[in-house]
């Protein structure tokens, strides 16, 4: 078992965003997580990443608490946010941060970005936030894929990509180690249908459907 959320409840200003959520992610699971806005998809992901202190219940990733052992937990997770954040570091500095904090090889990032037609080497001094939306997303994807993780979490990863970029991205995903688990937050199941083996549907802070495909 890679990650488990047991009876997790979380409220923001009196509104229950996660309502007694139970979720297990096993090795090799390829999950499409769906649901309307405000269903709690991003909240459960953020709780797995240790960003939120849950009100009750328990979350473990590789047997460790994401709050108490965040460094150990995050070593085994790669995360791509829905929108690339406006990081003001240059690409060189961002790569340096990623390399040193997560022990990722720079060459591997160049290799992965090259496979998505993103030439990084000529843009190293450019601030990250000045790249186009698609380029930023490709770089984040390249970083995530270069990290040796057990669990890849993608929050609407293709929102900024053009059709060709999406195609390349999905192509790269087919090459991920089968032992590695993935969790996609998506509204478009049709796009990733061939890449997932399980779908979870959330609504009003609850898991309302969880089935193998």
């Amino acid at each position, binding site marked *: 078992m890679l990650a488990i959320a047991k009876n997790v409840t979380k409220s923001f200003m009196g509104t229950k965003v996660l309502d007694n959520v139970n979720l297990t992610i096993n090795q090799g699971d390829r999950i499409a997580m769906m649901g309307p806005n405000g269903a709690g998809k991003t909240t459960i992901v*953020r709780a797995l*990443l*240790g*960003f*939120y*202190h849950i009100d009750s219940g328990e979350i473990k990733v590789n047997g460790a608490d994401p709050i108490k052992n*965040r*460094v*150990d*937990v*995050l*070593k085994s*997770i790669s*995360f791509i*946010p829905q*929108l*690339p*954040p*406006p*990081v*003001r*570091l*240059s690409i060189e*500095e961002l790569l*340096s*941060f*990623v390399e*040193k*904090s*997560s022990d990722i090889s720079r060459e591997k990032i160049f290799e992965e970005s090259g496979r998505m037609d993103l030439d990084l080497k000529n843009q190293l001094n450019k*601030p990250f936030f000045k790249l186009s939306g698609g380029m930023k997303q490709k770089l*984040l994807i390249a970083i995530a894929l270069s990290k040796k993780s057990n669990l890849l979490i993608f929050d609407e990863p293709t929102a900024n990509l053009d059709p060709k970029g999406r195609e390349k991205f999905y192509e790269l995903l087919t090459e991920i180690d089968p032992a590695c688990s993935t969790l996609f937050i998506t509204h478009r199941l049709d796009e990733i249908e061939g890449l997932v083996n399980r779908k979870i549907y959330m609504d009003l802070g609850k898991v309302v459907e969880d089935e193998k495909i």
Partner: protein
Amino acid sequence: MKNLLLIAYLDVKESLRSKWFYVYSVVFGGLMALFFITGVSDSVVMGFTGLSRMLLIFIQVTIIILPIFILITTVKSISGDRESNVLEYMLSFPVSLKDYYWGKMLGRFATVFLPVFLALILGVIFGLFKGGALPWKMIFLYSALLFSLSFIFLGLAFFLSTILKSTDIALGASFVVWIALLAFIDIALMGLMLQNRVSDELIITLAMLNPIEVFRIGAISLFDPELTVIGPVAYYLLDTLGSVWLIIYAFVYPIVIGLILAYLGYVAFRKKDLL
């Protein structure tokens, strides 16, 4: 420790590219140059002239500008990153919250303290160029006071930045704190003193809890150990603390308060939701 230094280094690099850093550096460096160009150092006011006169006016300017500059530029540090989702991405890497928070603070301290310190050194060089004597002790102590003033406002800014989730509210709170420390507390204490309802000693003690007041008196005491310019309050302060302890207090007190505030900010950063 490796990650703490990495975060500090990256924060310095990021700040060096920011517009606020240029404005900040130009303001302090430019002011110092302006003092010399306009002949401030050649004027005599209350017996002060030359480098002492120039440093005295630099203190007055520092008291007003430094706290608000530090608050405005730093208070966005954590809250701004949180709002723009930069924090979400950067903290999805295996970096401890301790390394991230203290690394940010270390980096930011370097970028807010160095321009003011360099402006001071620039002033000293100008002074020497004009043929003045080099007051080593004064420069050392004044640098120490600038260090502690920068530190307390940095601690305060990190505290506000962590506990307030919105950048707008954090900026508003910074402004209120700044104006209160700079003027409102003094006005309120003067009002109390005029009404004679509270003992003068208590009022002076309350005034000496205000870090801006502490810096002002500490800095003045470097030029005027008898504190004649602040009037009868000087007797109480010097009789109670003595000139040496007054300077030690002016240096240590803001650092202690800055550390407490920064630590409280760190506790909030760890204990509250990050996003």
